[in-house]
């Protein structure tokens, strides 16, 4: 009799070959192009490590990378923290006192930005944030806070934080939904017992909720960090990396290097570095996750 493992191999074969065709081969080709000075047409010329040497001293790239760390805060750290509190509040408070139906509706509302195409959301936000006739400035003026009006996306000292704010709005729904699903696994009797023992909301959150959904927290943090490192759409639609490069991120930097500057070799080197970093972070995340599951 054949071992079941052999039958699985056959089923895995198409997926593995497709993975080879659309991920491994392009990645290897990209890595190869990173060692050339190719302009996108004609024959690539081998340039060795020149692109990587240039990258090491490229202040624009490192600035874009620093902005990536801000994006990690906006897309991973803040949504995870906020998502945890909101998920616990919706499950433990709103669900209990106002019914699970309302909790579900609120959850759907928070998730809505995730469903909206980023191009649409970006355009709508750029209207809201427009300096002269944008809704936000109009609202501030209407409530007597006219002095708070800003050029939200046009001020280089403010633009990065504004983009971060929009990204928190976009991202929040994802951890919320995952955490609420995770909370469903926790035995309600634990909460009841803790309540009977006199534990307040915060103690229940810290000692039951948090340990209970640790695997979900790792998944969300890993997933969102990767999303933050490769964020492109929001930056493209809202600011195109501006003003004055204040919101540039590696993926947008790579895009302009590829297509605007037609430095395909250099753009490929940037993408390769970005892929390696994301891969490393993903592996660390998976390791932490499996450790959490084993614990």
């Amino acid at each position, binding site marked *: 009799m054949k071992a079941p493992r052999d039958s699985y191999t*056959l089923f895995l*074969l*198409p997926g593995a*070959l*497709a993975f*080879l*065709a*659309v991920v491994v*081969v*392009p990645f290897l080709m990209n890595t190869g192009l990173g060692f050339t000075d190719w*302009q*996108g*047409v*004609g024959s690539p010329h081998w340039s060795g490590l020149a692109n990587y040497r240039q990258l090491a001293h490229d202040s624009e790239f490192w600035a874009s990378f620093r902005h990536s760390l801000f994006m990690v805060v906006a897309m991973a750290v803040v949504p995870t923290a906020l998502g945890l509190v909101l998920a616990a509040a919706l499950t433990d408070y709103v669900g209990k006192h106002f019914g699970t139906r309302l909790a579900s509706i609120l959850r759907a509302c928070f998730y809505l930005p995730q469903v909206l195409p980023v191009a649409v959301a970006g355009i709508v936000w*750029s209207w809201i944030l*427009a*300096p*002269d006739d944008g809704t936000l400035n109009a609202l501030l003026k209407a409530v007597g806070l006219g002095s708070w009006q800003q*050029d*939200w*996306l*046009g*001020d*280089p*000292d403010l*633009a990065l934080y504004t983009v971060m704010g929009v990204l928190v709005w976009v991202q929040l729904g994802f951890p919320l939904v995952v955490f609420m699903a995770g909370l469903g696994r926790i035995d309600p009797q634990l909460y009841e017992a803790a309540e009977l023992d006199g534990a307040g909301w915060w103690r229940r959150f810290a000692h039951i909720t948090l340990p209970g959904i640790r695997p979900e927290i790792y998944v969300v943090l890993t997933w969102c960090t990767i999303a933050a490192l490769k964020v492109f759409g929001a930056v493209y639609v809202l*600011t*195109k*990396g*501006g*003003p*004055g*490069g204040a919101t540039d991120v590696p993926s947008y930097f790579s895009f*302009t*290097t590829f*297509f*605007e*500057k*037609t*430095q395909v070799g250099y753009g490929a080197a940037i993408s390769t570095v970005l892929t390696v970093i994301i891969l490393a972070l993903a592996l660390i995340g998976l390791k932490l996750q499996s450790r959490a599951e084993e614990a």
Partner: protein
Amino acid sequence: MLTARRRRAAAAAVVVAGSLLLASCGGSGSGSGDGKTLRLWHYEGPDSAMGVAWNEAIRVFEAQHPGVKVKFEEKGFEQIQKTAPMVLNSSDAPDVMEYNKGNATAGLLSKQGLLTDLTAEAAKRGWDKKIPAGVRTTSMYDTNGVMGSGTWYGVPDYGEYTMVFYNKDLFKKYGIAEPKTFDQLTAAMDQFVAKGVTPLADSGAEYMAQQYLYQLALSKADRAWVDSYELYKGRTDFHDAAWTYAATTFADWVKKGYLAKTATSAKAEDAGVSWIQGKAPILFSGSWWYGRFQTEAKFDWDTTLWPGSDLTLGSGGNLWVVPKGARNKQLAYDFIDITLSKEIQTLLGNKGGIPVAAAADTIADPKSKALIANFNTLTARDGLAFYPDWPVPGFYDTLVSETQRLLTGSEKPDAYLDHLQKAYDQGVPKR
């Protein structure tokens, strides 16, 4: 051993994956090459002057070539811009396509041998006589892909240039005289500022701000300066009198309130709309706005060339190019020839475009007549100075981000010029 069923499944999997692998390595389409089909790509909207003219050219072409079908594919500008090199490298190339002019675009493709040499056709069919010298600059590229001399690789049918659009009603409303000279222009802007109106429509996130700046530089420049900057016929020093004047004047205009700091994040569309809505009395931009303003601006308006400058931004329009791998090149040449015919050129002019070879007396609309007359004035004095982002690939983004800094005041003119110099020197071809 595998059973027959499993072998079939495995074979199917290999075929599927193999075709995916092939697809990922680039397509392999087939052109017709039968002399019966002309494959044509362009990206003009069907209602634009060019779109209307090209549609008519297709009709004329089919009438003149019985049995030949034009297979037209409408593309987006960005789509062609970003993917053309890859498509032209494959056998999917069309017979004739519209492509962006300049060193980093048509020049790059010609240097890589992806475009057909049109020199003999241009002489044989008289295109070189029809297209004025200043417009022709973007048709010819040398072996390094630098425009201005060498081989014909593209044919422009129309021209474009920048001008001052002004809202006559707003000038009247505030009792301000319409400017004829540069001093009158600045005096008018001072009066608008005094009345709480920001006079210039502007967009920092897209091309408009850098075009104001380049125009200021051009007003202190000459043809040799432009040739150095755009055609690398000398060293470009961003701290010379023209660039320094441009950067300091621009910064000064921001301080004086001629340009709003809040335009930093505005797109060109925002600036155009603010002018159409009568919020800003003056807009300096290109003839590509002309047709739209004719339709949408519900007030009395006029245009004038930038006062006190022989040079302004402008060039021949986008090019017809014939890919090296085109299968029906003779048909492509015939089509280009038709687009340059008096009939099509006149149609283009009457629809708000700027033809390069129209019969002037057949243009009916007075506004279109004025538009074309100004273009002819410019080409007669060799006044088209191209665009500031052309010389170096990626310079557009540099100009946008640096000019945004100048607009917000986060960078001084001197540092601004330093940064432009660095980016220019890095990207300029070594000759």
